[in-house]
């Protein structure tokens, strides 16, 4: 029997680090947003891991069930997923607009063009 222990939290943190690095270091704007969604998924996993109870079932009431996992983190994360898609869509719309105005979606080229225009 393998024990998970704290592995889930560490996996969340590693995913968070990958997402954060992608969002900071990659110059491509679409790649930055992909990094942001990896970051978000890591936060979702962290919350859902906290809500898990060993031997529990999904929080749907039924006969003869002893233990349920905690439903409250699930509610929080449901809201967070939907808000996440709203921010992603707005971010992508901004990327499309930037692409039209500058003819590129690479951050360093956009900054260069700004300097030339000034």
């Amino acid at each position: 029997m393998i024990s998970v222990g704290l592995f889930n939290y560490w996996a969340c943190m590693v995913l968070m680090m990958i997402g954060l690095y992608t969002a900071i270091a990659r110059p491509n704007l679409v790649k930055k947003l992909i990094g942001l969604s990896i970051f978000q998924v890591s936060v979702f996993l962290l919350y859902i891991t906290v809500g898990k109870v060993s031997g529990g079932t999904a929080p749907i009431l039924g006969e003869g069930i002893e233990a349920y996992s905690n439903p409250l983190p699930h509610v929080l994360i449901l809201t967070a997923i939907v808000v996440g898609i709203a921010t992603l869509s707005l971010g992508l719309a901004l990327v499309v607009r930037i692409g039209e105005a500058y003819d590129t979606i690479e951050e360093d080229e956009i900054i260069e063009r700004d300097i030339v225009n000034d």
Partner: protein
Amino acid sequence: MTEILDIALLSFMIVLAIAVSRMQNLFMAAMMTGIFSFLSAIVFTLLDAVDVAFTEAAVGAGVSTVLLLGTLSLTTREEKIVKKNNALALLVVLITGSALIYGTLDMPNYGDPNAPVHQHVADRYIEKSGEEMGIPNIVTSVLASYRGYDTLGEVTVIFTAGIGVILLLGHIWRKEDEQ
């Protein structure tokens, strides 16, 4: 068994995330992000969060992949090749990550029923929501009834985001109408 699956799927997610981060082809990166979301949906199912799992599968893997592909069709498919790694960013990320991992050492173990999060209001919802709301799914009764105003606020957020997208991209459709 679920423990092995949990560890295997999370490891696979980490590998996929690194692959997505390093990939030059944005079309492939978008598809891999979809796979990443599906994997996270499976992990949510293992962790008993079935409602979160199907929302993630529909919204995270479905809608966000479509949005990413739509953006790529309006901009570009290839990322510019970046040779050097950004050392400063790596340093910041490593410091943040190690501080957070240090923080997890005090967290309760996976599935611990005595964890602080299970000691407060959750039991009340599990015991009473069935008779108060008359629906068996506790997540639904909290989301739609006890915290209904939060869900209304969420709808406001989506509405605002929708208006923002229309304002930013509306001229594309207008241009098509004129042609």
